[in-house]
């Protein structure tokens, strides 16, 4: 129910109320009334036809790095 998917903004309406997003080849018009500002190329979280929040590419990269580091054994290399 609270599932939401990250999609890329490809066009924004003149009144800043709606946008076209692309998700794996599918394009859809959604409302961006819940966002303060938005630009083409941003990734937004799409939920029931609305963009809920922008995704931060920097934070996504940081989390992945954290996950990679968490998986490292500080004492020795894990062989299997």
């Amino acid at each position, binding site marked *: 129910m*609270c599932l939401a998917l990250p999609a890329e903004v490809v066009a924004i309406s003149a009144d800043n109320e709606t946008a076209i997003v692309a998700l794996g080849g599918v394009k859809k018009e959604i409302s961006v009334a*819940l966002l*303060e500002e938005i630009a083409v190329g941003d990734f937004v979280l799409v939920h*029931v036809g*609305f963009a809920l929040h922008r995704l931060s590419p920097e934070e*996504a990269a940081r*989390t992945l790095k954290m996950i*990679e580091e968490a*998986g490292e054994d500080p004492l020795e290399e894990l062989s299997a």
Partner: protein
Amino acid sequence: MKYVDEFRNGHLAKRLAASIAREADTGRSYHVMEFCGGHTHAIFRYGVQDLMPANVQFVHGPGCPVCVLPMGRIDNAIELAERHGAIVCTYGDMMRVPASERKSLIKAKAAGADIRMVYSIRDAMRIARETPGREVVFFAIGFETTTPPSAVAIRDARAEGLKNFSVFCNHVLTPPAIQRIMETPDVSESRTIAIDGFLGPAHVSAVIGSQPYEPFAAAFGRPVVIAGFEPLDVMQAMLMVIRQLNEGRHEVENEYVRVVTREGNLKAQALVADVFEVRDTFEWRGLGDVPFSALRIREAFGDFDAERRFSIETRKVRDAKSCECPSILRGAKKPLDCKLFGTACTPESPIGSCMVSSEGACAAYWTYGRFRQGPQKEAAA
């Protein structure tokens, strides 16, 4: 898909699992409740529980809005279509949820009621524009994620003068429900459930931020780590909970920083506050009447409130006998503890709400077949 596939990397999952096994103290156990059905679904779909050591257990929480809605409210929605002749629009998850007398929205639709499944409340508004002679009611359910879209729709409907459109509001709030879990006798007194920490909501927190959980973590002395809905998110957040417990900390931490901030989406919060106000109390399946746990439409937008327009009154309806949904929603029981699981109750013919939504614990057990690997209980059932 960008921002999805990276967080499903099997190689990294194995390494994270090894870290969890290394850091989890074998002298104790870790019972961590994932509040959200979205987490429950990910845990089963990707077999995350199987990657955990035996002393690290997920306890499934009530965060499935379809599952916690009391039957009386679904009866109300069916009556709107059958008695008032309204076009009732709702999210797909609601269609099969059992109402009284084993009815459901989908059965009422089959019997001729005009009930339509929509992707978005914007679709319901479009239907209202296209059928000006009919009343169109959006049966709104969900936590803080679906609430801002409902707020935008009600605001726009008033601005546009869309007079045949209204919303039957069943939006509920996450923080009071999490608190209620810690206050149920199962947890607070008899200690039949141990909950050492929580995985906090992903997209609810995108809207409300991480701040609202801070008083809870302090008051109940439990760590809360906000987690994304992908398997690596869930595992990383579990590792963060384990570290907090090992160090004797109980803070709110945020694993899902690519979306969630401490403040959340302020514009969405302001819109919600404009349109909705908190109800004194609301019934949750499994949790009973929970004070200040749901929203209703403010009087200023009363023309778009289906409860006012159709003078809706909700009866209390008892759940089906033997259905363990209420205990399962509190984390007190697991689906396999229910005699109906997989016998009388299946996704094709559900008796309890937890078997309906893909985020319900019973549906997750059933869909991914994990119960088949379990103890011999199935054969006996």
